[in-house]
């Protein structure tokens, strides 16, 4: 079975982020790039499946990113993935969700897969629309927010998290899945994994190899950013010491009244 994990490279949450007013894009220089934290769970889910299923199961990392992201991709290989493919092309710059999903779908068709696993959300945009759009372009079902994944004989059974619990969902490969944190804490790369990652291949794919029928990048995007502003930072809190329970409750109660929240 061939599992492909899609990974987005995002700026580190802990870094101060800024957007270039001219290009209206995130300034990535000087900010450490990391694997979208949600996608680390997707990698973990894929590696756990590989261990469980054994045999000829492989895990391929796929990312649409500049070639400079190779070092970050290597971290996924060090965790235990078999190989990686990067779709890197200047022509992709300015792609929105629509254009990204379209280009990625064509690349994934070329790579081939039985199962695609994605993180549930992208940390930098809170979009979550991309995996779903991908499934449409690929014409495969999307089992979203999955956990407790069981696969045998190309049949899939998983729990799908909802706001109030979960659904038990069944289907057949090929399919696309997004996973939640309940699949388990992403593993650390072992020293052996880190050494081994250097010998694993990271293939680089260009747009010209995909034979796209539709425009991508800024020209193909269906949306455009017209304005970016910094959100005014919240001020410091009023700090009050509570002598005891009733005093603390009174402070909060009065504050809620003052704010017309009661």
């Amino acid at each position, binding site marked *: 079975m061939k599992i492909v994990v899609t990974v987005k490279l995002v700026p580190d949450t802990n870094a101060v982020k800024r957007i270039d007013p001219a290009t209206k894009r995130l300034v990535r220089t000087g900010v450490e790039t990391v694997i979208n934290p949600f996608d680390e769970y997707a990698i973990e889910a894929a590696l756990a499946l590989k261990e469980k299923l054994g045999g000829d199961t492989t895990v391929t990392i796929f990312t649409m990113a500049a070639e400079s992201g190779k070092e970050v991709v290597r971290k996924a290989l060090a965790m235990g993935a078999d190989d990686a493919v990067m779709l890197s092309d200047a022509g992709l710059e300015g792609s929105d969700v629509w254009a990204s999903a379209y280009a990625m779908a064509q690349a994934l068709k070329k790579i081939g897969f039985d199962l695609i696993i994605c993180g549930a959300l992208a940390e930098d945009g809170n979009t979550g629309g991309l995996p779903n759009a991908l499934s449409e372009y690929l014409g495969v079902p999307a089992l979203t927010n999955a956990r407790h994944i069981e696969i045998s004989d190309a049949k899939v059974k998983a729990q799908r998290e909802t706001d109030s619990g979960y659904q038990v969902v069944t289907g057949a490969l090929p399919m696309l899945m997004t996973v939640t944190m*309940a699949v388990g804490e992403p593993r650390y790369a072992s020293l052996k994994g880190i050494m081994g990652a250097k010998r694993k291949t990271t293939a680089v794919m260009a747009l010209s190899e995909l034979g796209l029928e539709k425009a991508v990048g800024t020209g193909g995007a269906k949306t455009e950013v017209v304005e970016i502003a910094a959100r005014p930072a919240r001020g410091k809190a009023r700090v009050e010491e509570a002598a005891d329970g009733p005093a603390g409750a009174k402070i909060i109660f009065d504050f809620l009244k003052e704010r017309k929240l009661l």
Partner: protein
Amino acid sequence: MTRNVIIFVEHKAGHTRKVTFELATEARALADQIGGRALAVALGNGASTVAQALGKYPLDEIHISEDPDVDRFLLDPTVDYLEAVARSAGPSIVLVGNTMMGRDVAGRIAARLQAGLTSDVTGIRVEGARVECIAPKLGGNTITTCAFKEAPYGVVTIRPNAFAAASLETGAQVVQIAKPAGKSYALTIEAEVEEASDEMGLEEAPVVIAGGRGLGGPEPFDTLLKPLAQALGGTVGASRAAADAGWVPYSLQIGQTGKVVSPQLYLCAGISGAIQHKVGMQTAGTIVAINKDGSVPIGEFADLLVVGDAFKILPELTQLVQESKAAHA
């Protein structure tokens, strides 16, 4: 270009989710600005009950289907029905709640309609013929305004609690949707299991009472936070530490790898407010924190930080709120 506005109704067996009423209200305002009709699509078991509830909102048409396939198969029938309404309505802006369900629907329908997608939107404005969507990005640190280019369709996910819901009886027409022909569905929903008793989703709750590591175990979530949440008409949330410890399900986790919430009131106990948590709640209206330590990071961006013992303060506060509500009832 004249466009209609279509809202995707989220409900559970006829119990309409709050964000839907927010969408309905905004749909009318937007439709009036862009010269189209405001339509709703409600699907599955209970859709006709939902149509009644939505009758109190200023919509032109409510399209429904109670086809059991909608609840039997995962999402595919839902997207097919929504697509059918969008195609028959012609150029439209589709509004969907930014919820677990809504994000799935939005991504799918956007691809189907070859439409742009703007996410987690907190404001919509019309500039000439262009629809522009305003959304907080990068953990709420920036505000981005994104416009749809010329295309027949656009899809928007709306952050719950960002738009007001205002009822206004208009007597919307209820239309039955014909079953899309020639479809087969790949993912079967075998069972539905409820883990949390709260009907209200964390992302749309107007009040969130959250707990963290400082609470020391799972019990205080039920005994301290839940009663206060109920008294204030809200729901319970948690920090990652609490979810990782297994005290609450991950569906209640707020922050970088959890949910992003913007309630009117965010009140938390035993949460220090590290950046991973901050990015999930800093756009809340009012933030109140209770902590034993007066120097925790949350003091840098909360509105009120009470330094004290949450175990003693919360029951007292719950009682004050209950008494106040009873007096005003």
